[in-house]
């Protein structure tokens, strides 16, 4: 079974989508290169590091976008952002079950500075507007660069998030925090600490991702299809429920210093063991604790 983590953007699409159904929009032959990278004499990409198109996934008509972590860590510039925003807006006029975003990104492409920041804000606004129109947007996170910066906000704006244990999701990356406040605040080279703070298991136990899957493309496919079938409703009741959930979280866990403290509070008798648990074992324990 193919690893999602190891695959590049196009390999992920190959494994996720129904064979022969993918039609790429603005493929590399369209040569949509970033003018800002060229101005800095930096290598550009013909697809600007994002693959977008129409397809079917387990028989469901979808629009898909896949970020290529291998190109500038998946960072979002003017062209890449516009491709995602245009795809999201396309859903309003298309008969689709939803939009699937395979996110692997450090956030704003700093080489494009202001243009990158504005592009990310346009993606965030387009995700929210798409959802208000009743169209689900599902994010998948499981690549080696994680999902950070403004795109971490974009992911959390989506209808649902599917993650693997290997995935990481946050706003400021560990290196950024270490640069700002020192290694005592966040040792970005302490791999275990990073995963206890922003890793897939922590995000699942907190409820930030809806589904935790094994690092296999077929596992992502099943979870994404299930999430698409559940539909979407972003309205006042939904944001009021979300507010109550987040307020309870900050009240309850605001004094915790480490992911393990939160897991103990959630009822895991042996939180040090959580990183060693297999995904299905972790999900089973978590479901039992939530039911109790």
């Amino acid at each position: 079974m193919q690893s999602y983590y190891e695959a590049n953007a196009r390999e992920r699409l190959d494994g996720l989508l129904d064979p022969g159904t993918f039609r790429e929009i603005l493929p590399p032959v369209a040569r949509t290169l970033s003018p800002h990278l060229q101005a800095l004499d930096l290598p550009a990409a013909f697809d600007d590091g994002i693959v977008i198109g129409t397809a079917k996934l387990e028989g469901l008509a979808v629009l898909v976008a896949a970020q290529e972590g291998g190109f500038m860590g998946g960072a979002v510039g003017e062209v890449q952002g516009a491709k995602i925003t245009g795809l999201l807006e396309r859903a309003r006029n298309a008969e689709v079950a939803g939009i699937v975003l395979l996110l692997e990104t450090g956030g704003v492409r700093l080489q494009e500075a202001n243009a990158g920041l504005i592009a990310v804000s346009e993606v965030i606004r387009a995700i929210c507007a798409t959802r208000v129109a009743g169209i689900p947007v599902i994010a998948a996170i499981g690549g080696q660069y994680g999902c950070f910066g403004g795109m971490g906000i974009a992911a959390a704006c989506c209808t649902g998030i599917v993650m693997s244990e290997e995935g990481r999701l946050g706003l400021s990356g560990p290196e950024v925090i270490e640069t700002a406040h020192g290694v005592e605040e966040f040792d970005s080279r302490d791999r275990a600490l990073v995963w206890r703070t922003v890793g897939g298991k922590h995000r699942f136990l907190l409820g930030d991702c809806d589904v935790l899957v094994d690092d296999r493309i077929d596992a992502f496919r099943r979870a994404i299809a299930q999430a698409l079938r559940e539909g979407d409703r972003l309205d006042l009741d939904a944001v009021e429920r979300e507010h109550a959930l987040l307020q309870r979280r900050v009240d309850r866990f605001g004094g915790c210093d480490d992911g393990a403290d939160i897991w103990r509070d959630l009822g895991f008798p042996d939180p040090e063991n959580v990183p060693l648990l297999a995904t299905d074992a972790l999900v089973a324990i978590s479901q039992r604790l939530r039911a109790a």
Partner: protein
Amino acid sequence: MDWHDVTARLFPEGHHVVADGDLLAGTGRCGDTTFAVIGSAHHAEIGVELALAMARLVLATMRTHPGRPIVFLVDTAGQRLRRRDELLGLNRCMAHLAKCVEVARSRGHRVLGLVYDQALSGGFLATGMMADLCAALPESEIRVMNLSAMARVTRQPVERLAELARSSPVFAPGAINYVKMGAIDALWEGDLAAHLAAAVADAPATDTRRDVGQARGGRLLAAPIALRANVE
């Protein structure tokens, strides 16, 4: 600029805006219109508490005063860069605030933003950049990060970036560059109340920033690429 001066100039008919720590909250009257005022002061770092506090104000406005226009007053040094905030899911709290703004828009609230001092990256995405229309005071700064930090991350000489900042709106931090790129509608000078009254009447209902950026020559590819992604 101090938020007291800004609110006095925006709301000559009077306001009840107070600061609770870094949070600004209250109402202001401009002409015949009452605005819900939500914002941050003192170059606030936006952590989980402040993001949720602003979201709560948007929710309360929707429940208690349906249709009342909302104005965000923006002065932020960006998202709070702490491990604790990441542990608690600061990205989700920011996203929640952005979603509240979108739901307010869908229920007929006009949402405006005014950058009155500084706006950095993550602290700006869920407020002013979610608004129907965002303006800035001429002396304000908007940026992703400062040039020296950007030089370090991008491995470009700072002199090179400084030179680019002079010739390209993409790299310079002044609010005027965000005007050229379409993300800021205009710099507000003089009679702020008149600008606010005009903005609430004229703000576009959809996201037109990339078209504005193209028309102003500061961001040429976003509009045509997004259009092609939509129709091709």
